């Protein structure tokens, strides 16, 4: 055991001292913090004011374009050709031309600009025109303006989780989705990143020809285990440093610019940022924040059982890593160089990719049978279970999944050790699946 700890120490120290580790450790949080901070910061900037000339031949949009922070609209009344020729000179950003049409309501307009117009400008104009034209059409069909106003409704659906004891708790579907998907993707990423480090480490020992020197002192299994555990510690260290540094940078930034940043707006932006699966969640989130303000956001965050999520994240990260790392080690032992790993990588990566693909279905239906099975099977459970957990998972499912994951990694380690001990001393032999099968049975 003492020797295994020597191996773990070496594997750990050589890796955390590497320049690439240090760079990644610093760069990671900077990137993460940038992802969180930059959009907030940018949203605070007023940006360049854009003046837009409106040449409306229909007269329907007179003063319908209300000025925004970045856009100022003013009407012009010259002929199109004159306006086209001079709008630049008058420091207009663009010229909007609504031609007169035979129809009672127009269905198109032109936006002239000397460069590609800003997407915000474009959507804003489209939105305003769309609303206006819709109203016009409705009015044309005889619907009264007052009725139109009264039809516009805002619905806010507050979901309440009712537990067995009858205790009510507001649930926040969107936040659960964000946390679940984020943890799932993080586990996927870590398994790949550190699993392939194990594989490269084994190949390095083989190509350096140091492996026989070492296995004359320790058992091959100790060497494999030492490497896997050492790299797991590297992963945990990096993850820990990322969390601490990201938190540190964000906090520092917030306190430095606290006066400039509207806290509520910042939180809202964070929510939007963290919801990559589309506007749907962000919109709803917006609705929640709009209706209930900052307090609601804090309530949402406080409703998350962070202890459970962090605890199970660590468990499923380690379990999933151990399960796959052993397989990666076996692949490394079976080949002579990294180029030969392709044929064996496929069966190892397919379940991982499948899990990430399935994740999108699981998130829409965390209670369904597919979600259940994929969160129980050890090869996909680390990712799928992490996606399910924020939604609340029955304890029996969680225990079953954890137990199977432990059994799963014991099985893959046993299986990998058999390939490993034969493979590491085998040089210059083209290994195929038939050969691997022989090593396992041997």
């Amino acid at each position, binding site marked *: 055991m003492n*020797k295994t700890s*020597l191996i773990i120490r070496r594997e750990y120290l050589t890796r955390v001292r590497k320049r690439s580790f240090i760079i990644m450790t610093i760069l990671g949080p900077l990137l993460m913090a940038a992802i969180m901070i930059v959009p907030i910061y940018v949203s605070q900037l007023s940006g360049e004011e854009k003046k837009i000339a409106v040449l409306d031949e229909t007269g329907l949009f007179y003063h319908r374009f209300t000025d925004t922070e970045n856009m100022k609209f003013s009407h012009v009344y010259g002929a199109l050709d004159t306006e086209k020729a001079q709008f630049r000179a008058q420091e207009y950003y663009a010229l909007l031309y609504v031609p007169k049409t035979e129809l009672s309501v127009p269905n198109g307009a032109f936006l002239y600009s000397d460069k590609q117009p800003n997407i915000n400008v474009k959507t804003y104009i489209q939105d305003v025109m769309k609303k206006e034209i819709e109203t016009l059409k409705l009015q044309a069909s005889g619907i009264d303006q007052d009725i139109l106003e009264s039809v516009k409704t805002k619905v806010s659906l507050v979901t309440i989780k009712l537990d067995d004891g009858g205790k009510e708790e507001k649930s926040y579907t969107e936040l659960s989705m964000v946390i679940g998907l984020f943890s799932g993707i993080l586990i996927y990423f870590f398994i790949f990143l550190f699993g392939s480090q194990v594989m490269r480490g084994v190949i390095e*020992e083989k190509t*350096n*020809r140091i492996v*026989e020197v*070492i*296995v*004359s002192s320790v058992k091959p299994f100790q060497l494999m285990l030492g490497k896997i555990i050492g790299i797991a510690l590297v992963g945990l260290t990096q993850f820990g440093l990322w969390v601490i540094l990201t938190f540190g940078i964000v906090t520092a930034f917030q306190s430095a610019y606290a006066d400039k940043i509207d806290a509520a707006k910042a939180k809202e932006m964070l929510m939007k940022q963290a919801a990559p699966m589309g506007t749907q969640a962000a919109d709803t989130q917006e609705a929640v924040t709009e209706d209930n303000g900052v307090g609601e956001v804090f309530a949402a965050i406080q409703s998350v059982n962070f202890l459970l999520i962090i605890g199970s994240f660590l468990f499923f990260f380690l379990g999933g890593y151990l399960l796959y790392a052993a397989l990666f080690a076996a692949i490394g032992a079976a080949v002579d160089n990294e180029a030969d790993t392709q044929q064996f990588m496929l069966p190892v990566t397919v379940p991982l990719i499948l899990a990430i693909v399935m994740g999108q279905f699981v998130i829409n239906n965390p209670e369904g049978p597919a979600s259940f099975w994929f969160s129980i099977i050890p090869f996909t459970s680390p990712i799928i279970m992490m996606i399910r957990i924020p939604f609340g998972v029955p304890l029996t499912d969680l225990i079953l999944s954890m137990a199977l994951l432990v059994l799963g990694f014991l099985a893959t380690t046993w299986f990998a050790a058999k390939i490993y001990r034969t493979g590491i001393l085998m040089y210059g032999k083209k290994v195929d699946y038939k050969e691997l099968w022989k090593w396992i049975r041997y």
Partner: protein
Amino acid sequence: MDIIFEAKHITKRFAAHTALNRVSITVPRNSIFGLLGPNGAGKTTLIRIINQITGPDEGSLFFDGEALKPHHIYNIGYLPEERGLYKKMKVGEQALYLARLKGLSKHDAMSKLRYWFGKFEIQAWWNRKVEELSKGMQQKVQFIVTILHEPRLLIFDEPFSGFDPINVNLVKEEILNLRDKGATIIFSTHNMASVEELCDYITLINRSEKILEGSVRDVKNTYKSNIYEVSGQQFSGAWDSVLPGSMIPVRTSTDDNMHKAAIRLSGNAGPNDLLAALLPHMEIHALNEVIPTMNEIFITTVGQDSRETKTEEVQA
């Protein structure tokens, strides 16, 4: 004879072939024991079994009279033929790591490393990365790491490969030194000249079986064919007519009035009889017995063994 290591009837089968077939070796204490054989004969497999890297399918192993156990690896030092170091690691750090894997405490390992790095004049390299070292320099580090824990049994597989002649001598001297200090050395090589120079005993393995063993002297005596080489001047007459029937010239040559012949003696005839027969006819400058080199013995025995096996295969 005092035996330090013994392997009895070792058989090792792999999926496709048998690597060792009931091979036994006996290594006398405090000797240099040559483990010889052509490529693929099973030497490396046997060495890996001695180092407990793999286990035998059949047979038993004894270290110093005890059945071989995992803790015996602390008394064995092994320099494999396929050897290397972590390229990105610093030399000193790496030597320390490998020494500690052999069970040395950090303190002991450091003081021993300091001694050996001084002796091999590589102290300056302590903080360099291995990839900056020449191959010979790396070999020195590996050699030091192999012997550092002062094992009672040392196994060197092609120890001289990668060394220049000066370092070959350095290592040779160290090997002899180690033996004089009480260590036993199992030495596997294809370089027959170094076998001749270093080994006390040999075992020859071919095609998974042991075909020859014994002390170098005994083996040579067995293979000598009672041929004497004689050279002299002022030779008159012909070899055939001068020599009696029990002495048959197998090779003769004349070079600038120097006459040479290799003569096989048979029956009771000895070197003195040969001298007596030649003295009246020539001025003798030299007479010596032709002793086969290890190289010749290797080629003869392995060649014979292979031919026999082939015939057997054909007959079968």
